């Protein structure tokens, strides 16, 4: 029996359910010498805003036990810069490119979403309403239900492309935000973004990050992310993309069982650039071992 790993997320056809997460894979060329980009389920590029952004002062990341706190500050070349210098490279590959977008105002979200309408080689958009690392904007949109609806609806009105909404790790209201995204026309949701966190150097008594605090990712957050994905998947009918500390196929399968249609691998790529590809292979092995023909046979398969 053949094994079918392909999935569809809001019209985006992926050869396997393992994507690489925004902010951890640059814009493609960084890892192109090390891994075959065509074997990824999809590439979610680092967040793009209407204008270029310089980001935060160093130190920008700090490693903790089983995790990484980052405060890059959404450094990016801006819409025009990415269309000119980033996207053409990715058009040379046969892999869906999902562009993560963000803004400081609703108008900026609209501007960047509209900016990709004519762009060839963009399979879909992922709206970041949940980055913990800039002072104004982004995190706010993910933490206020009314603003959240406004920004998702505004982006929806500006794009006909598949629209994924990336949720903030709001422990108490994940189902509410998931339903709100669905209600505002999102084609899928992805979660979780990194969790607000910090670390202190006790000798200098200074924060270890230039931005004081940042967002925690990596294996340390996986059980938290899994719980939120499970809750979100029960709350909506649209596909859910599970993200948070996935480092091996077993981790990914947990998210699928909890209800995710696909997963994204982030921090694990830093240790093993081929992590996403190996995880996709491992999911195939799991299907074979359990006599299952399609990855959808795993999604939501949690027994209670």
């Amino acid at each position, binding site marked *: 029996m053949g094994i079918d790993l392909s999935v569809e997320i809001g019209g985006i056809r992926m050869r396997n359910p393992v994507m690489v997460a925004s902010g951890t894979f640059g814009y493609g060329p960084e890892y192109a010498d090390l891994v075959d980009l065509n074997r990824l389920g999809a590439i979610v590029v680092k967040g793009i805003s209407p204008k270029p952004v310089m980001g935060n002062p160093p130190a920008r990341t700090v490693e903790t*036990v089983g995790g990484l706190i980052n405060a890059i500050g959404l450094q990016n070349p801006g819409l025009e810069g990415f269309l000119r210098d980033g996207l053409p490279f990715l058009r040379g590959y046969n892999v869906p490119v999902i562009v993560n977008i963000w803004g400081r105002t609703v108008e900026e979200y609209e501007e960047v979403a509209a900016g990709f309408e004519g762009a060839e080689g963009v399979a879909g958009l992922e709206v970041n309403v949940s980055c913990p690392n800039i002072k104004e904007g982004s995190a706010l949109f993910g933490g206020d239900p009314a603003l959240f609806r406004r920004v998702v609806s505004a982006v929806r009105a500006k794009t006909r492309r598949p629209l994924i909404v990336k949720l903030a790790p709001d422990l108490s209201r994940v189902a509410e935000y998931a339903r709100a995204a669905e209600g505002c026309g999102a084609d899928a949701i992805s979660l979780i973004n990194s969790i607000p966190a910090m670390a202190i150097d006790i000798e200098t008594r200074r924060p270890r990050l230039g931005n004081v605090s940042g967002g925690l990712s990596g294996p340390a957050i996986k059980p938290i992310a899994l719980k939120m994905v499970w809750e979100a998947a029960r709350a909506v009918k649209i596909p859910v993309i599970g993200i948070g500390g996935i480092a091996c196929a077993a981790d990914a399968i947990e998210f699928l069982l909890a209800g995710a249609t696909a997963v994204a691998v982030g921090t694990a790529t830093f240790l093993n650039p081929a992590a996403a590809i190996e995880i996709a292979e491992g999911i195939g092995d799991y299907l074979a071992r359990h006599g299952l023909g399609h990855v959808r046979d795993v999604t939501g398969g949690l027994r209670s």
Partner: protein
Amino acid sequence: MRMENAQILEHRDIQGGYKRLVLRAPGIAPEVRPGQFVHLRVPHLEAAVLRRPFSVFDARDGALSILYKDAGHGTAVLKGAAPGETVSLIGPLGRGFPAECGGRMPVLVAGGYGMAALHLLARALPRRGIAFFGGKTADDVLCVDEFEALGWPVRIATEDGSLGERGLVTAPLDEWMKKPPREGVELFACGPMGMLRAIGERAIAGGWKAWLSLDRHMGCGVGACLTCVQKIHAPDGGWTWQRVCREGPVFESREIVWEDE
């Protein structure tokens, strides 16, 4: 750039907590140019989510070697790795030193294990010049014999005076530079930021070039995560971030925007 499982051929103490790790890496070793680095996944370090970058000290016959000091969490575990074990490497990475000096006399300046980044350069440069090594104590001045064997006279300074003259490495350098060679000098340096800045300032004041290898906390090592950024002067008079792992680790002194750290 490639990823390779490299077998540990040799892992031994040098002195004062410094160790030398020799790895069989037939894919990476022949590609390494002076000043480049490898990103190493420390075996048995389950709590880690990042690799660790190391300058390539030597590369020949399908093997490469790195030097490190048992200074942190990662290296404390790395020192337990035994010959025969395999270690995942990504490399060679970064833009290293230009292996030429435009007819000027090459001057190498190293602080502590910064000399590791200069060893392949010492072999590759078209002519020999002079090297200045500095360290806190005699234990921090490494591999002098190997540079001398390549034909480089080495001047040494230690902060405690336990080897060479007492003081910073810039003291013997400044003394020597009072009578620079007629053809001029080209500086190549690796060490702490304070030392690099001092070298860079001297180069700019003297009208020389100084190629400085920066040692920065890194994430992915390949340019994706934007952890190891350095402010670099932009053509428009402003500045831009460049990635130490990709556009660096070597920058010419005039490129760098120095800030108080």
